[in-house]
């Protein structure tokens, strides 16, 4: 009998440590490695368009706006779909690319992590979960997009923008104050 693999395995990633390298196909079929982005700040965003917490940030325009704003500043933004085939949120790559475009996704790349390797390496539990890797390749943020664990789009403006605060600090070369906090959302569908 094969041992049951669950989402609760020890993650390789840790704050202040080198971010684990990974590679995957994007929804558009490109082969993407984390090591392609040496000397760049990289954002990882776990996404599942079947999740109401994700849709809160797309329907409100918050996530596309952040993607546009920060990629314009030279940040590499990787949206990651870790849903397994047959689970909620999984679509064939071309359909996934189409849905992401329809939702307004403006990430640098949307990665198909269908076997869940990237998600497990980073200990991704929920969508949307956010990670930031600094220019030196160190994991400097792992947590929530903001402070209000709700599905209501109107809460986006009143929440404390935990992820944005962290990303601004990283871009300004300052230490991140709240580097690890509990992300909210729907469980990643490994």
């Amino acid at each position, binding site marked *: 009998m094969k041992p049951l693999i669950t989402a609760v395995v020890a993650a390789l990633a840790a704050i202040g440590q080198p971010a684990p390298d990974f590679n995957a196909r994007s929804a558009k079929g490109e082969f993407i490695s984390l090591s392609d982005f040496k000397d760049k700040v990289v954002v990882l965003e776990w996404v599942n368009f079947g999740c*109401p*917490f994700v849709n809160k940030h797309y329907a409100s325009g918050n996530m596309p706006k952040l993607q546009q704003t920060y990629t314009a500043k030279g940040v590499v933004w990787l949206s990651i779909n870790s849903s397994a085939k047959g689970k909620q949120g999984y679509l064939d790559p071309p359909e996934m690319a189409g849905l992401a475009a329809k939702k307004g996704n403006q990430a640098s790349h949307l990665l198909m992590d269908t076997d869940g390797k990237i998600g497990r390496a980073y200990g991704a*539990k929920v969508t949307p979960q956010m990670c930031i890797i600094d220019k030196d390749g160190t994991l400097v943020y792992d947590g929530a997009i903001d402070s209000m664990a709700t*599905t209501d789009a109107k809460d986006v403006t009143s929440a404390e923008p935990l992820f944005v605060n962290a990303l601004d600090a990283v871009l300004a070369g300052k230490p991140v104050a709240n580097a*690890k906090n*509990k992300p909210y959302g*729907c*469980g990643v*569908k490994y």
Partner: protein
Amino acid sequence: MMDLRVLMLIGGLSSPLSGAEGSGRASAEWVAASAACKPASALQTAIRLTVDPGWHSYWLNPGASGMPLRVEWELPAGWTASDLAHPVPERFDTGGLAGFGYEGTVWFPVTVTAPANFTERASLKARLSWLTCNETSCLPGNAELTLEIDAGPAAPTAHADALRAALLKLPRSANDLVKLRVTEKQDSLLLTIEAHASHPLDLTHREVFPATPEIIDSAAVIRFVKQGAAWTAEVPKSEYAPTPVPRLTLVIAGDAKAGPIELTWTAD
């Protein structure tokens, strides 16, 4: 969008007497023990949430994911409402994430208090939002509920008995007779419970839930064992627990002999 509105309208028409409002995978209703209350007095009410079979809603501490029930009151001038009281939850494992919540119908008691100048009739409103999840997905829902109360002597409603039963299911604070202590270790917490001699306590088969989020790892099953006069349990810390741990509230489910209790420890 249109579809949803038509659906809600049909839902409303099909149960004109219940006053339950639904969306997503649940429906909610606000009921009172009495149709009337006197000025400057309290009235027992409850929000009743019914979740579709196979789905669950969430406790105050939802666990690793999920979302607690959220309420925004819109009360006439001078009226107040207590917090929503939550009964003892159940434990869920959803795709490897541990959570706490409820299946089926759950009553969340809330006490409302009328102002001294209450006359005639008052219309109280509550905007409720919730999250329901099953094994594969989550759906949010919301309802705008209204409770009409007349000024006057108590007039028990058909819900009075069920409300009384719902109150008995709530954990009672037992801090005066039972002491919880928390000793912090590297990656774990040592929990010690000692009861006053007049209040014998048997925790052998009682389920324990962490009401304070992200102090104890949500996946940890908390089992107390007897050590001398005390009961102890060592549990893994949540990876998000602040250092030092400032506070912890535990809810201990009832058994055949005793009702559910709530214990709170605060760091000195």
